[in-house]
Each structure stands twice: as structure tokens, then as C-alpha cells.
């Protein structure tokens, strides 16, 4: 068990060191998310619609698009120089590779989101600080679901010729439940609803996260098989 955790930690550490060296991923994701939010602000008229009604949707679209860039990048790096082949040759369980990539994707995405949230607060003039606790729970649940399925499918699409196009085509329809859930919950939180009053949505997103992590553990052996 200890060895298994060490293996996961080693993969996460490797991704961190690479990111510290290259500084490609986080800055690209952050700027892209910011651009998505800006484009939405220009394409809707904020003086007509209520900011707290359209805000959550725009925020999650930005997270989703920027996250897709992150996912694409994450397995591309592994494909370059045959790094993935090296990982697969390591006498480690394949699920350790999955969990390593899942955790590093989750951390990178969360860092990007922590930078985006204050800007979102300023641009939309919404007070996030008074609902910060529940908001972070919801953002975490949504991001975990995105990463659970995203890591599985990006490990799959990285072997395709048209990987940049295929990842969103495969991923987005499957993510619709979690997007609806996350947007709804974020909207309700901004309206001042307590977490206990939206148990059905929390249950839906949490079970989505658990089921897709489970499915990934069971099927990752068949994807990382060369």
C-alpha cells in the first residue's frame, strides 16, 4: 500500500517538476479561461440579464474549456519522447498511473480555478466571499468529476491521430450531467441556498465522481496496453 502511494506521488511530483521547468500549462490555462469569460461578457448584455443568473454558466464553461486544454497537454507531454512507454514499463500497477495523472490534473485545474474565481468576482460584481465554503465544495466536486472522466478519455485519445478534436467530442456529451449539476449548484449558492438544501445535486455529482473513478480503475488496464 505504501509502495503504491509512493508510486502515485512520484508521478504527481514528476508532473510538478515538469511544470515548474516549462511553465507552459498553468499560464496557458489561466489566460484561456480569462479570455472565455471576456468573450462571454462581450457577447451578452450584462445590463439586461442578472449577473448572478448567467455568471455560474459562464464560469463553468471557462473551467471546462481551459480544463480541456490542460487534459490535452497532460497526455501529449507523456507521448513526447516515449515518456508514457517508460511509465508503462515501470513495475507499477496501471491504476497508479491513472491516479497520478488524475491528481496532477486535479491540482493544476484547482490552481487555475483559484486564480479565476477572484477575477470572476470582480468582473461580475458578485460577492463570493460570503459563500466561499460551499462554493469551494461545489467547485471541487465538479472539477473531480471532470478530471475523473477526462483523465480516462485523454489517455485514450492521446493515441489517436486527431486527438485534439476527439477529446472534446468524446468528453463533452458525457460531462453534461456534471455541468448541469455544477452550474445549478453554483447558481443556488450565489442565491444564498445552503448545501443541505441541494442534497440531490450533491448526490448526483458525488456519485458521478465515484462511479467514473471506479470505471476508470477497471478499464485503464485495457487502454494503457501496448
Amino acid at each position, binding site marked *: 500500500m505504501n509502495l503504491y502511494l509512493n508510486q502515485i506521488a512520484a508521478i504527481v511530483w514528476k508532473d510538478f517538476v515538469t511544470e515548474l521547468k516549462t511553465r507552459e500549462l498553468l499560464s496557458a490555462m489561466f489566460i484561456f479561461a480569462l479570455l472565455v469569460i471576456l468573450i462571454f461578457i462581450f457577447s451578452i448584455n450584462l445590463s439586461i440579464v442578472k449577473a448572478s443568473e448567467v455568471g455560474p454558466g459562464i464560469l463553468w464553461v471557462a473551467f471546462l474549456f481551459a480544463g480541456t486544454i490542460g487534459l490535452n497537454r497532460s497526455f501529449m507531454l507523456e507521448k513526447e519522447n516515449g515518456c508514457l512507454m517508460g511509465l508503462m514499463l515501470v513495475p507499477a500497477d496501471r491504476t497508479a498511473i491513472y491516479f497520478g495523472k488524475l491528481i496532477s490534473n486535479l491540482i493544476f485545474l484547482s490552481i487555475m480555478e483559484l486564480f479565476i474565481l477572484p477575477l470572476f468576482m470582480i468582473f461580475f460584481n458578485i460577492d463570493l466571499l460570503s459563500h466561499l465554503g460551499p462554493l469551494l465544495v461545489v467547485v471541487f466536486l465538479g472539477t473531480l468529476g471532470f478530471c475523473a472522466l477526462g483523465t480516462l478519455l485523454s489517455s*485514450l485519445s492521446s493515441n489517436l491521430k486527431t486527438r485534439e478534436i476527439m477529446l472534446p467530442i468524446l468528453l*463533452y*456529451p458525457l460531462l453534461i*450531467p456534471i455541468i448541469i449539476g455544477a452550474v445549478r449548484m453554483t447558481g443556488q449558492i450565489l442565491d444564498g441556498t445552503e448545501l443541505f438544501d441541494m442534497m440531490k445535486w450533491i448526490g*448526483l455529482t458525488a456519485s458521478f465522481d465515484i462511479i467514473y473513478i471506479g*470505471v476508470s480503475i477497471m478499464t485503464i488496464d485495457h487502454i494503457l496496453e501496448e
Partner: protein
Amino acid sequence: MNQETTEESNEESYILVWLTGIVFLVAMAAIFLFVPTEQTEGPVQRIMYIHIPSAWLSFFAFFIVFICSILFLWKKEREWDIYAHASAEIGVIFCSLVLITGPIWAKPIWGTWWVWDARLTSTLILWLIYVAYLMLRAQTEAGSMRARYAAVLGIVGFLNIPFIHFSVLWWRTFHPQPKVISSEGFGKGMETSMLVTLGISLCAFTLLYFLLMGQRIRQEKLKDEIDRLKREQLYSS
């Protein structure tokens, strides 16, 4: 494959072709001649006898994809891959049919082609998932990789259905409540003659599914056989 089994399966498929044809004729007669016109909705309601069987068939086909995907990952036999592929193609065709007949029915009844109702939305998402599945198959070259990837997507996609169902249901809904299997009991919400017609139509569509499956599987196996012969030719010369 030897000569005898080919002839035998040919004979079977002929029986299936005739049976499907006859049941379809009976279904058409029932839809257009036998069943009374619905009181409030008028003749357009007859599209239901195509709409509901197509929906049932596409869900059934996607369920078969799910089962065959699991069996493929378990047994790693080419057979299951072929079944999953054939079933996904048929499912997408009938899912498209549902999405086409739905708006034709909705326009005169609801007054719009499309509403973001739970069942319309989930059918559309389902269609997108399985179109992506077929695209994944088209993008990868034949072989073990394609079969494995498609099987993983077949499993992941089907497990998504309950999540889609609940999320779009809580999102919003105004589709007519289920009439055939309602809370009052089986078939209580509908006239007997309508139920019978729907039953015949369901039979016809289900037979059509098996007919198409058989043809598609045979086609795919012949393709494998041709590939094998080509390779043999290549290496022997």
C-alpha cells in the same frame, strides 16, 4: 467458415427477412387502417407508432453495445467487438429517427419543433455520445486498439444514461407522462386497440433490429475474411 453453415445461416436470414416484411405490413395496416384516430391530437398522433418503437429500439441497441463491450473486455474475442459495432450503428440510426419524428409530432401539438424537455434533451445527448463512439471507431485503424477503446467508451457511455436522465429531469420537463407503463398499471392510460397496434409495431421494429444485426455481422465477418485472404496472397507471392 465452411459451405454448410453458410447455407444454413442464409436460409435462416431468408426466413427472418420474410417474417420482418410480413409483420411490418401488418403493422402498417394496423397503424393506417385499424387503429382509430386520436380524439384531440388528430391523425398526426399516428406517428407515435413509429416514434416509440424507434426510441425503444435505440435504447435496446445501446444496451446491447454495453453488454457486448463488457464481454469483449472480458473475453477479448473479435466476435463481441463486431456485435457492439453493429448494434451501435443501428442504435444511432434509430435514435436519429426518434429525433426526426419527435419534432414532426411536436410542431402541430406543442406549437414548436423543439423544446428543452427532459426526454428530448437526453435523447439528443445519447445520440451525441454514440455518434462520438462511431467517430472513435472511424478514426482508429482496425485491430485490438480500436476494439478496446470502443469497448471502454461503450461502457462509459451507457453508465452515463442514469446521470443524464436525472440531471435533465431536475433541470426541466414537460413531456407527456409515460402512458404505456404508468403508475396506474400496465397499459391503463391507453385504448386497447392503440396498445395492440403499438405492440405489433414494436414487434416489427424488434425483428428489423435482429435482421439488420444479422446482415451487419455477416458483412463485417466477410470483411475480416477478405482481409485475411489479401494478407495470405501478399505473403505467398
